[in-house]
């Protein structure tokens, strides 16, 4: 009710009541989408799931409904969410239901104003990215005001102020900070006459973000030893209430060639995440790419150093991040290739990623009748080099500068390495195959906190074959193998999918952890699923056993616990 009143007041600020006419409602459009994900969990003694651990919460559900009204330059909308209770693996603090997202927006000729919740990104997100990812249970939307102004063509100025979503918690001083941001984006081809119509397109940008969070008492005791007498002293941390970050970026495009660069700097930001050190943060992101018919090449590099930037200094979970650090790793989709996904390390990492996509022309000797696609990817992520700030201060000591780090020196620790090749070939109108080989190195101690566990070296082979029985019926088969001597050992996977286009999809799958060092855990993770699609509506019902793991999207990850039971998903849009 409170939120409806607020939306009404916001509407009234823009449109005085006497100005609303019948035509305003007649010319409007309503659109939206919704999704319900439900699961019924059962006991599974092999996975250690008992009646006691389920704690009476056998059925769980995550659901949302988006609705938006647009009429010319005006837009208003809201999203209702319910977690009753949240699905296993989602933060239990989300339990409940309500409207966490609502807004009104109006666009004049050069100015657009948004009041309420919004998502926004400055450049590549190195100092500000507010976004939502349903599968991760991630939502750091900003609630406040945003203005976008284009005084001249080619120049866009954005200003925003607000507080980030924190589960269902209303903002109170002390439970999180206030985020302010400003961004300028200059498309030089519109601003500079000599670039108008040029094949070379240049965009420059600059942004500034600051958070204000009231300082709370943070103290530590230290021992002082004099003549064998130990005396304790208490020290309080200097806490900066205003923490700022700024970034500059450029983007250059010439024909099929593109170059992107962005550098970000953050002032001292002592927090629980970095153990209260006072080192500044830096991030650099570079990317080059070339694309032409049948060929695409890209090369990216990044360096991040102490760039966790949250609007609550005491928070260490996957909430309240103000910024986003690109992972530079491939987002795999085949199931065994997702067992070891990389999670971005905001405290420091350096990495490169190279990709080549080439289509061997059709009707050539190698390409065959339909052509053949080859994709190569290589990612390598390492730590940064850390050195002591002085001989008597260990690296990462709380209440100090922390460390110094030569900008272009690689650290000794390997975090992640991924080489993969994917070949896609259509043999005939009925047969199509995808073959993939992946070689992964995964530092499970750093990424998942399994201190002392050796790095995982895995070789993964994937064969994906589709046979079109008739124009509307097809059968798809996947066979995968992950081979490793570390962690849970090797896996084999088989999948059969029968489709009756466009409405019916039937899938059975099994993942078998055949060489787990614990013989009792050499389990089959089987599942079956039926999906029905009617227009924009999709209904899917499944049953099976789910393995424990990590689900990562864009380098941000969520723990997925092992589970057994039924699941249902209903989604639609209008």
């Amino acid at each position, binding site marked *: 009710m409170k939120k409806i009143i607020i939306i009404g007041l916001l509407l009234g600020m823009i449109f005085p009541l006497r100005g609303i006419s019948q035509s305003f409602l007649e010319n409007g459009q309503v659109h939206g989408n919704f999704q319900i994900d439900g699961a019924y969990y059962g006991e599974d003694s092999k996975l250690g799931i008992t009646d006691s651990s389920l704690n009476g919460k056998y059925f769980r559900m995550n659901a949302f409904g988006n609705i938006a009204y647009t009429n010319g330059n005006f837009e208003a909308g809201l999203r209702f969410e319910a977690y009753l209770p949240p699905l296993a693996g989602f933060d239990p603090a989300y339990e409940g239901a309500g409207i966490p997202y609502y807004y009104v927006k109006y666009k004049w000729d050069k100015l657009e104003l948004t009041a309420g919740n919004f998502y926004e990104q400055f450049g590549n997100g190195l100092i500000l990215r507010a976004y939502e990812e349903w599968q991760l249970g991630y939502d750091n939307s900003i609630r406040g005001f945003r203005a976008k102004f284009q005084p001249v063509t080619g120049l866009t100025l954005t200003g925003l102020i607000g507080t980030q979503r924190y589960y269902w918690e209303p903002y109170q001083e002390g439970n999180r900070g206030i985020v302010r941001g400003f961004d300028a984006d200059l498309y030089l081809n519109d601003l500079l006459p000599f670039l108008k119509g040029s094949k070379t397109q240049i965009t420059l940008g600059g942004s500034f973000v600051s958070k204000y969070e009231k300082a709370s008492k943070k*103290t530590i005791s230290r021992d002082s030893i004099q003549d064998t007498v130990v005396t304790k002293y208490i020290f309080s941390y200097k806490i900066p209430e205003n923490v700022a970050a700024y970034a500059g970026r450029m983007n250059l495009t010439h024909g099929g060639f593109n170059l992107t660069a962005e550098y970000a700097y953050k002032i001292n930001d002592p927090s629980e995440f970095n153990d209260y050190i006072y080192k500044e943060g830096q991030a650099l992101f570079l990317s080059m790419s070339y694309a032409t018919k049948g060929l695409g090449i890209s090369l990216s590099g990044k360096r991040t150093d102490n760039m966790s930037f949250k609007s609550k200094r005491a928070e260490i979970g996957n909430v309240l991040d103000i910024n986003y650090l690109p992972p530079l790793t491939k987002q795999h989709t085949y199931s065994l290739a997702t067992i070891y996904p990389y999670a971005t390390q905001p405290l420091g990492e350096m990495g490169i990623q190279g990709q080549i996509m080439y289509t061997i022309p059709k009707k050539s000797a190698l390409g065959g009748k339909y052509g053949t696609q080859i994709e190569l990817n290589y990612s390598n992520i390492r730590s940064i080099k850390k050195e002591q700030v002085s001989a008597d201060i260990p690296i990462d000591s709380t209440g100090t500068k922390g460390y110094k780090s030569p900008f272009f020196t690689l650290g000794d620790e390997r975090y992640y390495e991924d080489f993969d090749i994917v070949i896609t070939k259509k043999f005939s109108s009925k047969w199509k195959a995808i073959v993939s080989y992946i070689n992964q190195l995964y530092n499970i101690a750093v990424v998942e906190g399994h201190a002392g566990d050796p790095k995982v070296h895995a070789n993964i082979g994937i064969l994906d074959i589709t046979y079109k029985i008739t124009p509307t019926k097809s059968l798809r088969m996947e066979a995968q193998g992950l081979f490793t001597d570390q962690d849970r050992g090797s896996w084999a996977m088989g999948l059969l999918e029968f489709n009756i286009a466009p409405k019916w999809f039937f899938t059975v799958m099994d993942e078998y952890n055949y060489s787990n060092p614990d013989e009792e855990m050499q389990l089959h993770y089987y599942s079956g699923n039926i999906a029905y699609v009617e227009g924009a509506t999709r209904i899917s019902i499944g049953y099976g056993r789910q393995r424990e793991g990590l689900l990562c999207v864009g380098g941000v990850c969520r723990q997925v616990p092992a589970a057994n039971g039924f699941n249902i998903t209903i989604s639609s849009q209008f």
Partner: protein
Amino acid sequence: MIVLLAFTLIPSCDVEDDPYLVPEGKPGPGPDPTEKVRKLLLEEFTGHTCVNCPEGAMLAHDLKNQYGEQLILMSIHAGAFAEPSTAPYTADYRTQAGNDLNAYYNVLFYPSAMINRTKYNSQYALFTGVWQDAIEALINLPPDAHIDLSLEYEAITRTLTGNVSVEFLNDFTCDFNICFYLLESGIISAQKNDNSSVGTVPEILDYEHNHMLRDAYNGAWGTEIAAGGVSAGQVETTTFTMTLHDGWNQENCAIVAFVYNATTKEVVQAEEKEVM
């Protein structure tokens, strides 16, 4: 609005200078034994295969150094990280009371701690970053009760007898329960660790576990000590007798007695006394 915002952002930078830690002096002498002050209970959920837990224990110990007798520590081994595993993690430090609390408060991450079983920012089990904030929210409040605890230990039978007197300092309309938990310190056993400033990584084989919950004399939820409300000045007394397990070192054991609101389950007052 954009221009105004741009100008307000410019001074929004607090760059701090070294030294970053400001001396506050020595910890206070602590309350007079006869003085009635509020004492808080910090119940930390932990486990021997929890790599972040030694850092949590170090923080709890540091808070104890600062708040002295006003802060009582308890370490509850519960959840997946407390389960016995392959050597050297074969020990089982879990207790029925600890398991019950872990399940009731839906503890999902470790280390986490409850401060007086009172919600802070809508949460009971708190991550380390807000332990001091939660303590600061309660520590200076006047006490609602005072606990007098005396213990007698008989070495041959290993019998421990306790006499407790609870004086309520304000009027209340709720019921109150009292709990007696036995803790043991100085238990040397392996502990996983990923913080080199705390100890060796990836594990500390001779880690000293302190304030470990060993037993709850009257169960996780205790027994009733006052029903139907109390008046300021009302005194309730009770006794208990328990036998120490042969494997526990009585010289390192202590009893924590605490009284809590039976409706909200918030701890009203706590007291700790060593067995010997």
